[in-house]
């Protein structure tokens, strides 16, 4: 089976043709590749808040999701909270898993590998002595993050490992988490 028929037979639900087209187009017009992503967050009560995402900027113009998406965040009863949603740090872990998983699907499609199932388990270790202000030497965020993939696919082990490695190399959230970045917070 040659590469072309192999790719055509593979269906991971990723439109790599469109993605490669976009890559070629944006190489010619780099300004269109400048995106700004947004979220709005409203406080509800206690540690409960609701974030909404809909609009974003990209391809040189204002854009929109097909509808607004909301995410509720809160803390669990162990933190004396009402548990109306996942904790913000769990959103971070979910975002990492989603980003890497999307990358696995896209890279597998591009390389002609049919996926049957992909499961990512993510763990983040945290010493809450940091956020509680008990110990100034302990950082607030994760001291370690582990992602473990369980992938069933038509490919040898090394090829699956290479797909997972390439997914990390091209992941926005992986980059955001592993590299320092400047954050500016202002009050209107």
């Amino acid at each position, binding site marked *: 089976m040659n590469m072309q028929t192999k790719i055509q037979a593979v269906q991971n639900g990723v439109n790599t043709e469109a993605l490669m087209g976009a890559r070629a187009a944006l190489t010619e017009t780099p300004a269109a590749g400048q995106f700004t992503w947004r979220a709005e967050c409203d406080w509800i009560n206690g540690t409960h808040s609701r974030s909404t995402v809909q609009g974003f900027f990209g391809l040189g113009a204002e854009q929109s999701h097909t509808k607004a998406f909301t995410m509720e965040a809160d803390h669990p009863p162990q933190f004396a909270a009402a548990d109306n949603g996942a904790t913000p740090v769990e959103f971070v872990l979910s975002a990492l898993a989603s980003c890497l998983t999307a990358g696995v699907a896209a890279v597998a499609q591009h390389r002609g590998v049919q996926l049957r199932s992909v499961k990512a388990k993510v763990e983040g270790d945290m010493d809450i002595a940091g956020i509680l202000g008990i110990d100034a030497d302990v950082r607030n965020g994760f001291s370690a993050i582990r992602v473990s993939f369980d992938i069933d696919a038509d490919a040898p082990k090394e090829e699956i490992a290479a797909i997972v490695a390439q997914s*990390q*190399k091209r992941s926005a959230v992986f980059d955001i988490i*592993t*590299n*320092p970045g400047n954050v500016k917070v202002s009050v209107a």
Partner: protein
Amino acid sequence: MPRLAAVIIGAGHSGLAMSRALAGRGIDHLVLERGQAGNSWRTERWDSLRLLTPNWMNGLPGLPYAGGERDAYMSVPELVGNFETCVAANRTPLRTETRVLAVTAGAGYRVQTDQGLLTCDSLFVATGACSLPNVPGFADQLPAHIEQVTPINYRRPAGIGPGAVLVVGASASGLQIARELAMAGRNVILAVSNHLRLPRAYRGADILAWMCNAGVFDTPYDEVDDIERVRRTPSLPLMGSEKRETLDLNVLQDLGVEIVGRLAAVSEGKALFSGSLSNLCALADLKMNRLLDAIDLWIDQRGLQVPDAERLGPTRLPDDPRLSLDLNGIGTVIWATGYRPDHGWLQLPVFDRKGRIRHEGGVVGDGLYVMGLPYLRNRHSTHIAGATADAEALSGHLAERLANRHAA
């Protein structure tokens, strides 16, 4: 001075190869060199450096390696001596100690040098791919006490001031410099970005012998999937040494070098490193094993009787690689973060938005050519002996251009 058919700027292996090719086609030309032939080898290399290609790959134009140590790696002084022999043997029309200040368009090209003006119909830019070190923008945020060095001005461990050394970059230069500093007893931290990994020898031969024979360097520039990607592939992480040793992150860690992630930022007197080290090492291991699998297959298909495969183990990593480093404890930072050409004197609209010269396999257009850049025509384009084939192709292009002009 009468107008020349062609001027070649740079008397390194590329420029000398082009001169020989033009001479062979009877095209009148002159080679300009800011110093002496092989100038960057004479002035921009550290003392202990040996070529990372075995001697059979190090022949200069018209001067194939003829010594008795084909599998050894020559020292820089030996190569410099060969440059002298090469210029004499080819009777290269060479003007040394002549620095090009500016090239502008004007009925062909006007080449302004510190020795006067030349005009020519065609111009070959052969000033090399590694003229300027790629130092990141945040280098100027390093504390003032830190001495900043690049592989272009690094000479030897004794020239490095007191204190620990942060080597940034784990390709051929960074690995070799980290190694010799560690062997000199220095405290070395190595920041590792995208990198490759190779054994020096495999199944009884130099890894480059297998790679050359199996044709992995041969794919032409217009047949590779993604030329941008292959052109920015890091240099091969090899070292030329008498004992044909492998050089990788495991070897360095055995010498006491601390491995950290990519240097991502300098902030408040601290160096901050990326947390992606384990993936970068996994990628390097995967790519190495994929290459060795291809070599095994090539050997099997030919039924060659060679020693069995022995693979290097995975790259070992610290459990918790350091994410930040207090720069108070660091005396020197060595930027082994790659190089770029210096084409600043070329005052022509031939650059892309990232300042790189636009070319198709070395052909820029209107009689302008560039040589010696990564993957100019294939992977051999940056090998010393690879210049001859590129010169043959590009001088052929020029000969055709001249023939068309005369016909017109």
